[in-house]
């Protein structure tokens, strides 16, 4: 099964997106992998931005002080971040550009930003989306000039008398070259170069010369009156930068265990292509090793992948989709609220005793209109997670009311499908023998069988 064409196509759709429907996979069986990859990129050529936060909150020339946004109360701002989170979940769940959304999600974790201003987060999210498959250099500079990261990492308040080192440090440690490839002195010098960076009342990048330190800097062995962009270009010239980024992409899209012999050629062609992200991703998705057995069905789904995978496979509709924010928090990944600038630790880090049960229970709860005691406690570190409008809050629990589109799900299969057909479609990993037998011998209806499959440890893998 693992080497069948169907499994390969499913693998591609899971890793480059969030899974696919059975019909699409069946229809593509006769096409070559190259053609299918072409189609994926073509589908993601045109895209739309996330527009959850309405235009009226964005300042314009007549509204310099941006009073509309400033007059919003703190609790409304919290609601806006919830809206933004749900807006993006909905967008990904219904997207016809899954590859672009998958890449956007990757960059969202790579440039993890945690601030309270939902407008700036939306602007940043669209920056990720616009540059998701473009040049990594353009992406990096756009992100650095975006107000969100300036607020988060203190570039905005950094002036030449006392530069703030935060952005310079994370730029090198997390965004580009990785630890061990720069010194504390490099951080101090780079921090000087980013002094005077700020933004206008319209949230556009603004350079303030009098706050900028334009003196000589010695950075990574080079000396000059370096600007922030110069610093970025010096970092990008280093082969370690391409290696660092490619390694992270490989871990995310291919395998947590890195094959060093694959990284080097990928990294050097990434650097030589001027950091062309699309070219890199095409190379990965069309490589034969991408479909090797060890790379298929072995990655642990992130909470986002798990939730959106269910949403897409079963076209789930929620009575009140705010429950999705609670689920994200309980599973350990709330979009727009990364735990730190390091983003989310992927892989085994998602799994511990408490998240394991919830993950296994998720499908029955979402797909069967079931109830689960999900406590939304007052002690939530994310104040805005207080789902204060839920009626049953006093009881300490919130109920998920959602509806799967079972007609849609069932009708895509041939009549009276075997348990194996459903299992091969829903499960990407190998199966534990005793569990496989449990499923094989199940006499449940198609609907119940699907819920059972999605409640297995195996379903946590893709």
């Amino acid at each position, binding site marked *: 099964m693992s080497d069948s064409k169907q499994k390969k196509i499913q693998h591609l759709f899971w890793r480059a997106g969030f899974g696919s429907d059975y019909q699409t996979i069946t229809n593509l069986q006769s096409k070559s992998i190259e053609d299918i990859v072409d189609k994926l990129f073509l589908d993601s050529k045109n895209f739309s931005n996330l527009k959850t936060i309405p235009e009226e909150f964005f300042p314009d020339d007549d509204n310099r002080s941006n009073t509309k946004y400033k007059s919003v109360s703190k609790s409304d701002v919290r609601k806006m971040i919830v809206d933004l989170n749900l807006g993006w979940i909905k967008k990904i769940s219904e997207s016809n550009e899954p590859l672009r959304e998958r890449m956007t999600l990757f960059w969202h974790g790579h440039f993890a930003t945690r601030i309270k201003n939902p407008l700036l987060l939306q602007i940043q999210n669209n920056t990720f989306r616009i540059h998701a498959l473009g040049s990594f250099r353009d992406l990096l500079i756009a992100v650095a000039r975006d107000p969100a990261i300036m607020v988060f990492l*203190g570039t905005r*308040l*950094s*002036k030449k*008398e*006392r*530069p*703030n*080192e*935060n952005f310079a*440090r994370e730029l090198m*440690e997390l965004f580009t070259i990785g*630890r061990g490839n720069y010194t*504390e002195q490099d951080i101090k010098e780079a921090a000087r170069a980013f002094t005077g960076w700020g933004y206008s009342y319209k949230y556009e990048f603004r350079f303030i010369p009098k706050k900028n330190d334009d003196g000589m800097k010695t950075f990574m062995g080079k000396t000059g009156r370096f600007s922030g962009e110069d610093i970025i270009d010096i970092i990008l010239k280093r082969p370690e930068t391409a290696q660092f980024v490619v390694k992270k992409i490989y871990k995310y899209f291919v395998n947590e265990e890195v094959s060093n012999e694959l990284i080097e050629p990928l990294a050097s062609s990434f650097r030589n292509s001027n950091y062309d992200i699309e070219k890199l991703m095409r190379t990965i998705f069309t490589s034969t090793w991408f479909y090797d057995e060890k790379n298929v069905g*072995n*990655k*642990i789904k992130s909470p986002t992948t798990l939730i959106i995978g269910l949403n897409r496979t079963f076209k789930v509709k929620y009575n009140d989709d705010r429950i999705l924010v609670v689920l994200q*928090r*309980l599973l*350990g990944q709330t979009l727009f609220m990364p735990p*730190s*600038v*390091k983003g989310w630790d992927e*892989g*085994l*880090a998602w*799994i*511990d*005793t*408490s*998240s*394991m*049960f*919830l993950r*296994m*229970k998720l499908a*029955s709860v979402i797909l069967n209109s079931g109830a*689960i*005691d999900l*406590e939304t*406690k*007052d*002690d*939530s*570190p994310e104040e805005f997670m207080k789902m204060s409008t839920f009626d049953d809050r006093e009881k300490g629990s919130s109920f998920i009311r959602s509806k799967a589109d079972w007609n849609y799900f069932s009708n895509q299969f041939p009549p009276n499908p075997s348990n194996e057909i459903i299992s091969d479609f829903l499960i990407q*990993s*190998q199966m*534990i*023998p*005793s*569990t496989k*037998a*449990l499923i094989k011998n199940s006499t449940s209806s198609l609907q119940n069988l699907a819920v*059972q499959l999605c*409640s*297995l*440890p*195996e379903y*946590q*893998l893709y």
Partner: protein
Amino acid sequence: MKRRDFLKASALATTSLFIPSFLKAFESIGLESVRGKKLVILQLTGGFDGLSAFIPYRNDLYYNNRPTLGLKRAESLRLTDEMGLNPAMGDFHKLWEKGYVSVLNNVGYPNPDRSHFRSMDIWQTASDSKTYVNTGWVGRFLDSGKLNPWEAIEIDDSLSLAMKGELVKAVSFKDPKLFYETSRERYFQDIIKGNPLSGNPTGNLGYLYQTLISADSSAKYIYDKYSLKTNSAAYPKSKLANDLKTTASLIDSGVSTKVYYVTQGGYDTHVRQDGAMTNNLKEFSEAMYAFITDLKSKDHLKDTIVMVFSEFGRRVKQNASNGTDHGAANNLILLGEKIAQKGFINELPNLADLDENGDMRYSVDFRAVYATLLNQWLGSNDKQVLGKSFNRLNFL
């Protein structure tokens, strides 16, 4: 060999095999001294500014470096002739006056790393700053004693590296009741009944099944004890207070848990530090007061030590945004009633002798604190857990 001799020999062999190695380590000390001892670890995430909590109010260098952030002597709560306490920590001051507080100054490690993540990993894995280790020191404590997962509990949605051993990983949850209720699902029990680990599955799939099975047994064990008692003690309203209340309830329930792990975040104060620190320290102080008072009232304080640490201190000189950047050596706080050395245990920070980054130098390796607690409080083999020997301290 005669049958009787054989029986004798094998009985001996069995006994020594079945005594966990951590017990063997303290046979000489005597079991009673370490039985039922608990360590509560509180991690202050983000880089806790010790100089905002403990104020060297006679030191001009402190005020020179902190022109706007420095706290005046008159504002601070008196600790000693040299040192004051941040006025937001009134409750903590009460604990100090009762003699429950001990503070180590200048705790750190050689070649300090100023990255949050790396430095936190160093503290959690107890590694050198040049060595990368993928198990945590509490996790290895579980490993070395062949303990059960629930003998270390993290009150959180996920498990920190500190709590992950090679063989045994600690348990994490926010609420023991919810944890248990979820485990009772019939379908899960059906999957477990199939004996899924019989084929020794490896890789991520094996890990998922192992987690399922250890979660199931842990949930049952904890709930059986925990569900019998309710905690009516008064705690303030905060995440930290809630987590400490859960910890106190678990301690009172009689579970055999030896280490608890809780965190308080928000200490990365690069910008406008004073407001953030006031909030953080107030929350910390009030929650800790409620916790210690609760333990004392139920007679558990004699068996409990709290250790409070952060990944690093902050730079002595404030920055341009009325905040402070990442620093190095820092205070480490211990609370309990069985700590022999009270108050400030060692020499105060020397602000006249900073390192090349303008940060405080360490004089106490944090692993010496771990070694002391492991050996003298938890009765473990500190050398085995930490990978090498550190000179134990005298605070116990």
